[in-house]
């Protein structure tokens, strides 16, 4: 019965929701972080990366995740691929907006880990 319910239900179970909500709130508790801090970190990371690479601002995710005994800042920043090779091509690709999906680049704060 559970198997059928899970198969036909698009919603997450309340246990999964509970776990995810706890993970977020505990990170905030641990870092004594103000609610706006995460948004500020995200904006500043985007600003720095944008100086060097063209990123997809819609796809940027920045979050602190709990792993084992530590908390990690995990940033997932999709960058747009160059169509050509030269600097000119970058400019044109920017204008043309390549249809190909941007490739995500994952940066993990504490190092070592890769995002699953």
């Amino acid at each position: 019965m559970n198997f059928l319910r899970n198969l036909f239900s698009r919603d997450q179970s309340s246990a999964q929701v509970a776990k995810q909500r706890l993970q977020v709130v505990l990170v905030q508790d641990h870092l004594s972080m103000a609610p706006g801090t995460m948004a500020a970190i995200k904006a500043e990371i985007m600003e720095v990366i944008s100086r060097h690479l063209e990123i997809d601002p819609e796809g940027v995710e920045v979050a602190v995740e709990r792993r084992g005994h530590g908390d990690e800042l995990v940033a997932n920043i999709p960058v747009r691929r160059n169509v050509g090779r030269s600097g000119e091509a970058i400019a044109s690709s920017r204008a043309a907006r390549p249809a190909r999906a941007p490739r995500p680049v994952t940066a993990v704060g504490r190092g070592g880990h890769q995002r699953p």
Partner: protein
Amino acid sequence: MGRCITVTSGKGGVGKTTTTANLGMALAMNGKNVCLIDADIGLRNLDIVLGLENRIVYDLVDVVEGNCRLKQALIRDKHFQNLSLIPAAQTRDKDAVSPEQMADLCRRLSQQFDFVIVDSPAGIEQGFRNAIAGADEVLVVTTPEVSAVRDADRIIGLVEAAEIPPPRLILNRLNPALVQKGEMMAMEDVTDILAIELIGIVPEDSTIVMASNRGEPAALSEASKAGKAYREIAKRLQGEDVPLVMPVASESFLDRMFRAFRPRPRVAS
């Protein structure tokens, strides 16, 4: 030299007192000399859960203030001579006892007893600090609910900051049927979040209420599932290797349906 173990949780109502009573009873059943301390000054309850409420003459504050000798405040359990209780004072505040006095009392008691178990009050204030002042180890009790787990996380941080070894976790009131439906966090969900060692899972069990009603902890009952879980935790505390098994729902809906249609055995008259 005995061990002083504090049972705490942060959140109230998750089963600290029940856990303390049952672990004390189970350790006493295993022949250990056990002393329980009710550190919840002003909200005394361990005495009534153990059925010892009519035997109180002196309490924790009397011992600390020197109104009686330590021995006079020790109440013997009805079932086991090797189980004693120091009850909390009911008409005083948490600040009637200091952490230093509590640590000193725990030290004195652990010279006489194999296990000194302290029942901590809820919260993170003075009462909690008193309760962990003499602790060699800490057991954190939580239920699989967001509020209890969040508070447990806070308590774990405070215990670690107090330079006590990492606490171990008791997951209380787990409802296996709800877990199987995905409507309650499972053992792994809670241990993922809290990242401390799990020492036991106690299933939700109506025998706990019945046991408190009678003042006879469930650990005394062979039939009680929760009682069995507590007896197993006691063995783990004694260093025995008892495998941790996730409780399963006793009967699924389908099982019940099938059973309803099964022919009933005839009873001989």
